[in-house]
């Protein structure tokens, strides 16, 4: 059975407070033998070795590249592989799974989003991630965590609800899009983040009409999500989204936009937000898709408007 939600008053402001846990809640749910029954804690980082430098006691590692991605086709693992990776980590369909990680939870939010593709019922994010836990002087331990394996059912991935593909984005043009990359990536000055490897996009710029809201604006200085009022001012005020809008978010490979997808979906309660995981590494190299350069959002090209309204 799912564990009760974290009753911390600071979470109550959000549309779905049960999707976040505070560091204190997590600490209270750890025993000397690791997470209490029914709880599994997963660390998911950009740098795979960060976990080995010390992790929350009893937390298991899940790597976006080695575990969640299919190693041949650019796609996520299928239902059988997902069942295997969950089973090996002692996760059952009833487990409450709390994700945390480095880089303000980019990869943790991404892993959580992939769990949602498989409809795992209870997934939560540790607000503030690894940095918040560490900054409070809470324990990090080294060593391998062995959990008793479980039988996780084979569930078919549902790509229709919260995931968008390139053709979905083309058909969506004219409806709200949020580009969460850095301003230089948005304008087309760069095709990748400064200080990051270029994973390859042949063109720079953004998808026509996309609003630029860099992901980090959803996070406060300490890595926790900003207040609901601040998030509303940002996404509904500044970016102009309406609560019932059909929205697609994207970045470079879908990880930073998972962080924004989480904010829109669970903190603001929007029900129709999809993450385009192909993101700029696909769009920026695709043949004949429209691209806009510069700071302006741009227009949907005339030939495509009919399609988007159809």
């Amino acid at each position, binding site marked *: 059975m799912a564990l009760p939600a974290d009753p911390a008053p600071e979470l109550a402001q959000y549309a779905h407070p049960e999707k976040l846990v505070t560091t204190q809640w997590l600490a209270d749910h750890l025993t000397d033998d690791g997470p209490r029954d029914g709880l599994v804690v997963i660390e998911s980082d*950009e*740098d795979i070795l960060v976990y080995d*430098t010390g992790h929350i006691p009893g937390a298991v590692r899940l790597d976006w590249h*080695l575990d969640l991605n299919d190693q041949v086709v650019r796609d996520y693992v299928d239902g059988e592989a997902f069942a295997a990776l969950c089973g090996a980590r002692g996760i059952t369909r009833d487990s409450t799974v709390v994700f945390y990680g480095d880089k303000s939870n980019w990869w943790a939010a991404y892993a959580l989003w992939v769990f949602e593709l498989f409809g795992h019922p209870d997934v939560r994010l540790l607000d503030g991630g690894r940095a918040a836990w560490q900054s409070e002087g809470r324990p990090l331990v080294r060593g*391998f965590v062995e959990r008793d394996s479980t039988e996780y059912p084979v569930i078919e991935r549902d790509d229709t609800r919260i995931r968008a593909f390139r053709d979905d984005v083309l058909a969506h043009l004219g409806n709200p899009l949020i580009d969460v990359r850095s301003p230089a990536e948005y304008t087309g000055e760069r095709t990748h983040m400064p*200080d990051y490897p270029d994973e390859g996009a042949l063109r720079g710029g953004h998808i026509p009409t996309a609003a630029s809201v860099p992901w980090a604006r959803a996070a406060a200085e300490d890595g926790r999500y900003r207040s609901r009022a601040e998030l509303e001012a940002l996404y509904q005020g500044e970016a102009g989204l309406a609560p019932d809008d059909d929205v697609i978010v994207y970045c470079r490979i879908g990880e930073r936009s998972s962080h924004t997808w989480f904010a829109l979906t669970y903190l603001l309660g929007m029900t129709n937000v999809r993450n385009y995981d192909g993101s700029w590494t696909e769009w920026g190299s695709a043949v004949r898709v429209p691209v806009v350069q510069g700071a302006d959002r741009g227009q949907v090209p005339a030939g495509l408007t009919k399609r988007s309204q159809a």
Partner: protein
Amino acid sequence: MSLPAKLAEVVDDFASLTPRDRLELLLEFADELPELPARYGEHPELLERVPECQSPLFLAVEVDSGPQARVDLFFSAPREAPTTRGFAGILHAGLDGESAETVLGVSATVLDDLKLAEVVSPLRMRGMASMLRRIQGQVRAAQAG
């Protein structure tokens, strides 16, 4: 060109381990990466950035001219980037103090023999190949110049 003895030893160490222990060894290399000497620590502009790495990595190569000249390697990467530090640690352990000729003779295929791709992913291994390429580029430039 045969592999320098120290690098060959590191490769053997990794190859003989289970995948989980390979990660553990990589972490040891990350932990043991020497600090930058003050002459670089105070002058980061002397270091070359390796943008292909997932996290920022900077390196410097000191070498005189001549094929037998000794190559000294210096790296800088943040503690929060242990994989990148581990890669740098392997190259430092394997190549620091070798001759220019020996360093230039190392083929990037040796990195495959570390068997790290399956534990850190091929994408991340690209950063290590870039480090080696840039080290060799600096040695080559010093030899030419």
